[in-house]
């Protein structure tokens, strides 16, 4: 479990370039949670998640992992980073080894594991992101497509076997199929291993589909936080923050505007389908033939 208390972060303090990226941020991430962090560009999302594994130190405030202050002097930050895996934006830019296997094994090797264990974890991690270790393992990471590189980078984190996975825009710049595939792999892992997931994303659809709770950042402050459905229930407010709602929610709103009484709080395609069918069934119950939905 991670808890942030009053975390403030000021970049380049004391210079003319001083910038407060986070201000008094408090939040809690429970074990097994799937939390989305949304916010406009520059709202501090990346800054926030780098506090969660001790890569950045708060200017003020504290970050606790299981009630231990991770910035305390006696805490081994490397252990924190093993437990809380953080995937950076554009993680394919961090690949460096000659082969995919060696690159994915970098984390486990740093943990000081035996070569056998490293090999085993590497193969498992690659399989978990849908890459066949026998096919992709010996290849150079630089010969892969962007989507494949991204998956190798994710495997590099999974091989450290963290309890908590923080993904900073894991699908930015990928095609829809790769996007979906990567998120599906992550969710499968979560369900299999009970991982805690923090998803930073500009895709409201992905957040709505996967996350139970959402934290909304605006210029470094938490401006909304709660169950996904509640956060997305106020499209006007989100729009004012430079954010949107999932497309199906927008769709449902437009339907209601035209007098079709669908539920207002649909978040996923499946929910929308059911909501529309409900309406149609209701209409069918009262009238001989269902009216066509515009």
């Amino acid at each position, binding site marked *: 479990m991670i808890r942030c208390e009053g975390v403030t972060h000021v970049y*380049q303090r004391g*210079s003319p370039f001083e910038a407060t990226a986070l201000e008094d941020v408090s939040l809690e991430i429970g074990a097994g949670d799937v939390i989305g962090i949304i916010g406009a560009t520059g709202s501090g999302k990346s800054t926030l998640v780098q506090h969660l594994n001790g890569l950045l130190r708060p200017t003020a405030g504290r970050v606790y992992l299981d009630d231990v202050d991770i910035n305390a002097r006696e805490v081994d930050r490397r252990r924190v980073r093993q437990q809380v895996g953080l995937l*950076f934006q554009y993680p394919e*830019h*961090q690949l*460096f080894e000659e082969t995919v296997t060696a690159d994915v094994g*970098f984390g486990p090797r740093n943990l000081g594991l035996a070569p056998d264990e490293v090999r085993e974890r590497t193969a498992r991690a690659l399989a978990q992101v849908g890459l066949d270790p026998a096919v992709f393992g010996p290849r150079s990471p630089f010969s892969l497509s962007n989507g494949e590189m991204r998956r190798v980078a994710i495997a590099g*984190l999974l091989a*450290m076997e963290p309890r908590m996975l923080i993904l900073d825009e894991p699908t930015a710049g990928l095609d829809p199929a790769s996007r979906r595939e990567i998120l599906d792999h992550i969710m499968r892992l979560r369900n299999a291993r009970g991982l805690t997931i923090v998803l930073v994303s500009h895709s409201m659809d992905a957040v709505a589909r996967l996350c139970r709770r959402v934290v909304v950042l605006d210029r470094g402050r938490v401006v909304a936080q709660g169950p996904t459905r509640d956060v997305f229930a106020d499209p006007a407010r989100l729009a004012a923050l430079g954010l949107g709602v999932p497309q199906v929610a927008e769709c449902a709103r437009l339907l209601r505007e035209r007098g079709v009484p669908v539920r207002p709080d649909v978040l996923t395609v499946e929910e929308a389908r059911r909501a529309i069918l409900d309406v149609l069934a209701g209409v069918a119950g009262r009238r001989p033939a269902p009216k066509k939905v515009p």
Partner: protein
Amino acid sequence: MNFLRGLMLGQYVPAESPVHRLDPRTKLLGTMWLVGVVFGTRSLAGLAVLTAFLAGVLAAGRIGPAYALRGLRPVFWLVGIAVVFQVVFGDSGGHVLFRRGPLVVTRENLAAGVFYGYRLILLVAATTVMTFTTSSVELTDGLERLLRPFRRVGVPAHELALMMTIALRFIPTLFEETETIMKAQMARGAEFTRGSLAARARALIPLLVPLFVGAFRRADALALAMEARGYRGGEHRTRMKELRVAIRDYVAAGALLLVAAVVLVPPSLWRAVVGR
């Protein structure tokens, strides 16, 4: 983790000030002039005058003294070492202040160490004042103009200036990228600041490889973007901002001459000319 940024000497501070508005050529030549004057100084009074002058320029350029001093911080180390060397290995003889075993500190050596150390600080300070108040674009523009007369003897002024512009433009990007990659590798358990020298050198590979790959990727993209916009070298290009010498540039030149005169002309000569 922001330690890399701390190393960036004299980062440009955008502001509206008479110093910022000076022609970059004035500032380039003026800085060279000041460096010469600092080297020529023989007296403490000269150093004091130069310090006052630089402080004045900083104030006129709206640079906070605290920020300026922070920019000089890395130099203080160097100066400290230089002073220690001068004190420990300088000439023997003179008034002994302190003696322990082979270590002898004389007053003359200490004074000389402090003097040369302070001169070094002033040298860096003079150049830093320029980089604080001149954007890299202006700097390279000025340099290109200053180098233009040398084109006849084969100096590729435009190309040099362009290379410098691009390099300066991408240095901050490179720093940022270094920081990000370092953090990303630390997230995978890498350690950059622990272990033996060999271990630390090896730890740089996961940093340097992505950095170079990224630099090449960016160079490719930049070349493509420039070609796509029809860039074809320096001939017949016009500029968005023409450099113009204004009255303030003459004022600055006058001030620089005055400082040089005050600092370099021996007091006896002054007395002969002014005092009579």
